[in-house]
């Protein structure tokens, strides 16, 4: 986490006391508004390189937040928490930085000696239970285009031992 917003907003006569976690994936360089996961109060923040440059400044009620915190909890109340992806409170975790920070990986289908590798996306789903993956990558059925390309390579003698 690069920073937190500890919400002290008065809710029903008691401070809200919710810690909203601002994750670097989203907030590293960020200017905008974000809500408190518990009471919904909206704060304006400006973060530069992971530091709170200005804010958090409370916004008038009814302001729509640009985004939500990733996770929040209430450490003074036995760590009641709002896990990632709680609807209307926290953001789902995609594990991806915002697009501007994303490099484009080199996607390849064959290793330097010409044999197939699983180095491209998207991949077919596992077709198993609970994320289970079958032990062998059945290339012929799951990736028929790569299989066909591999057969061509074999025929051309482009597949080597080293």
């Amino acid at each position: 986490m690069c920073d937190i917003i500890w919400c002290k907003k008065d809710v029903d006569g008691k401070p809200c006391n919710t810690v909203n976690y601002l994750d670097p994936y989203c907030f590293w360089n960020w200017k905008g508004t974000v809500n408190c996961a518990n009471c919904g109060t909206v704060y304006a923040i400006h973060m530069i390189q992971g530091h709170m440059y200005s804010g958090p400044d409370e916004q008038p009620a009814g302001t729509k937040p640009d985004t939500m915190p990733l996770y929040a909890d209430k450490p003074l109340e036995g760590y009641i928490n709002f896990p990632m992806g709680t609807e209307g409170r926290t953001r789902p975790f995609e594990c991806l930085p915002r697009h501007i920070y994303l490099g484009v990986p080199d996607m390849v289908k064959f290793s330097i000696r010409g044999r197939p590798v699983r180095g491209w996306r998207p991949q077919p789903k596992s077709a198993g239970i609970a994320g289970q993956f079958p032990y062998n990558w059945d290339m012929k059925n799951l990736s028929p285009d790569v299989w066909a390309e591999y057969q061509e390579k074999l025929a051309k003698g482009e597949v080597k031992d080293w």
Partner: protein
Amino acid sequence: MKEWRKQYSNLIEAPLEEQHGPKSREELDEMKMPYEDYCRAIFAPGHEMGKPEALKGIRWMSTTMYIFTPHSVANLAELGAEVYKFEMPRMGDPMKHTSPFNEAYLYPLHDTRPVTGTGFGFLNANPNEYYVSMDYHLPEMKEAFYRIIKMSDGLTECYRPGTFDRWKQSYRYVQELNPRFIYVWGGGFGYGPKCFGGSYDILGQAHAGLASVTGHHEFMGGHCTKHSNWCIDWYSGTQITFGILAALHWRRKTGLGTMIEFSQVQAATRCLGHTAPMYGRFGIVRQRWGNWDTQLCVHGIILCGKSDFPDAINPQDRLEARYTMVSAFQDADFKALCDVIKKPDMYSKYMKHKDRVEGEAQVDIYAQLEDWAKDKSRSEVVRILQGEGLLCEPVMNDREVYENEHYRVRGTVRWMDDPLFGDVLQHGTYSAGLLSKTPRRLYWIWRPVGADNVKFYHELLGYPISKVQEWYDKAWI
């Protein structure tokens, strides 16, 4: 007959044909094979899978991340232990997304994230393990977590101090469930005043004093340097494995488990050699000495004038293939070296090792060596010096290591067909020492997040498939 030989009297008096071993000198010669062939036969690279596994029967839990603690378990998994790697649901070990340059190269990672893959930085730290996803801090998952603790020999974790205790799964909880349990906490600083500091490899190198004596001295334009590729992560992980093996041996004798606490910043201190005792005796704070050696001279790496691959596209080949190590610290070798580079004066000036190992002498000697090598390529220097019987080898890059016949023959670098990810060039498992009877081996490099959930929750722990599916849908696993 001498007294001590009496115990062997039955052997000594027995006729030759009844004794073990060769029956004649000819037979003995026939049974002997050259040492090279003998080694090839007993180590047999490529035939590891047919041999037994030393740690078969050990079941280990890995609630670890990055390299340091995972590597402690990887050593066990390569030697045959049954290891379950626990990862956060749908996310996995952060190391999967870290390196190199945050790029993911091998897909898939998880069904819910079809465009995310795993970077090669994850390689070698978690091979042969079963991949289970579990948010084990949830109260709802405690039962499953405790159930596997009762069925396992040990666990390695890497969380901040007290985290597992807060989650009621630290050593003092688990030893009540399983008194034979071996619990490893691989912390950054370990307990002490800096207890709450986390750690990374670079932090360990810096805090332990290793980085301060690594790299060139400032007068050579150098700075303190970290070793590349997190070598203290790999090193500390291996040290933990030693602890685990010792704890397993202790448990065979006593039936009791152990808690192992391992501080990464402390581990790097061990490889500093004479640094601390020298300070203790003389008050000398050790300095950096780059690619040279404070104990021996000549014994260092020199820069040659020409690259071996001047036309290569890759700058690592084109510009960097210019370094070679030279060793000629004994008087006769040093004389031969001075003769080769046609500097007989240098030999007469630094005839004794005591003279040439001095700092100023080394600056002079290496400068003269590099002056001689400035119009030569790396391979020319190697050829000339090796021709004189001196120890000299090029500083090789990855490609040259890959193409090196020595490593191919020994099976150190080899291709493997991973069951899920296809063709992978492997250099980790088989470079970590050879065992003739129970060698290390690599079954798979890694598996997607939760790939073995059904094997683990259903087949091992006995939960119904419907329950497993329910947990999966709730992202608890």
